[in-house]
């Protein structure tokens, strides 16, 4: 995968055939997830999408209950917006004549959403599979449980895509 700025606020992403296959499968699964009814999700995923406005007990009297509801509503809308973007990209892939490499040009705003969506998938996988800090730091071969191993593999892979798009961000004096 490569990512290059082709003009101010415009980016070109390029994926090899294998990367594009993987990405399209991820986006398809994510799209399905965005359409799911939150009420039917497992509690961890439901909590992720509803969000938590405050961890401090006793903040409810300060009117944070209402804020919590607004947060949940905003996150529900976010899913719908992301689904719409995602469907556009899948449509572009369907219509692409050249898929090796598959190239897609996106705006700065779309790039921001794209990165956030890939991160959504990472977070959802981690929550579903109960991934811990130890899992993330372990060598893949050390993770005995197959499902968790596959999840960590996908999380790492998507992390790589994110890092390619963002480049180094941490301040290093």
């Amino acid at each position, binding site marked *: 995968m490569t990512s290059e700025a082709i003009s101010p606020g415009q980016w070109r992403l390029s994926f090899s055939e294998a990367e594009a296959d993987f990405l399209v499968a991820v986006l398809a699964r994510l799209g399905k997830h965005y359409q799911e009814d939150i009420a039917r999700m497992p509690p961890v995923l439901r909590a992720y999408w509803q969000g938590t406005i405050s961890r401090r007990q006793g903040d409810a009297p300060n*009117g944070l209950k209402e*804020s919590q509801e*607004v947060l949940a*509503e905003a996150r529900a809308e976010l899913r719908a917006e992301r689904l719409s973007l995602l469907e556009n990209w899948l449509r572009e892939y369907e219509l692409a004549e050249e898929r090796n490499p598959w190239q897609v040009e996106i705006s700065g705003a779309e790039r921001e959403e794209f990165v956030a969506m890939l991160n959504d998938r990472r977070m959802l996988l981690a929550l579903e599979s109960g991934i811990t800090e130890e899992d993330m730091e372990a060598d893949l071969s050390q993770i005995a449980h197959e499902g968790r191993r596959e999840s960590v593999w996908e999380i790492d892979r998507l992390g790589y895509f994110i890092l390619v798009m963002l480049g180094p961000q941490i301040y290093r004096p």
Partner: protein
Amino acid sequence: MSQVESMRGAKILTPRRRGIEVAVALRATGVSSSSVTLSEGERNGCFTETFGRAGVEGPSPTNQRAMGLKLSPFCERPADWPRMDQVESVMGIPGNSNKVLRLRSDPAASGKENLPPRSAQDDGILNGDASWHFAAAKPGTETSPDIDVEEKLKEAFSRGWSVLVWNDPVNLMDYVVYVFKTVLKMDEKDASRHMWEVHQKGKSVVARETREKSELIVHRLRGFGLNATMEQA
């Protein structure tokens, strides 16, 4: 729109600004009712304001709703809604240009048939339409001269809320720095310092803001998948 009007216990503000501040104060403090004195101009006029949110261009409907700052309680009312003087007439209040009205969110207490039925969307300024429900204060129950509007305004606009970001095992360090730079407009150095704090201490206070702005920051950070919450400082 009328010019500067006074409000009990509050600073002198333009009607538009006042409408916003009262709305924010009520919203921020969770007060369900309060009293304000409205002038003729205000009762028939408009307060409309839209704020952008911190670090974000162009507020979306969600943002507007979240901020509760797009107020147009009179101008946007449906054509068949009664005017304020009609409402007052229904309620048996002699008209004058400067009376105490109670802003309320309790539909049961408003209880006047001629008022339009209240929908779920009417509840609160969060929905952006600020469908305030007015009922006249009964003699002797005029609560609120003592409600300290100024204090509420002060609270609403004070930076008394902290936004915290909590550690998690999945988000990449570079990604977290990127999000801090994008959402909070931090420079690379500050963003990295906060990221390390989250990583090493389990959490970091990344902003101290007004309640409204803190909410928006939490929304934005969560949109990027960071575990963000807010607390009253």
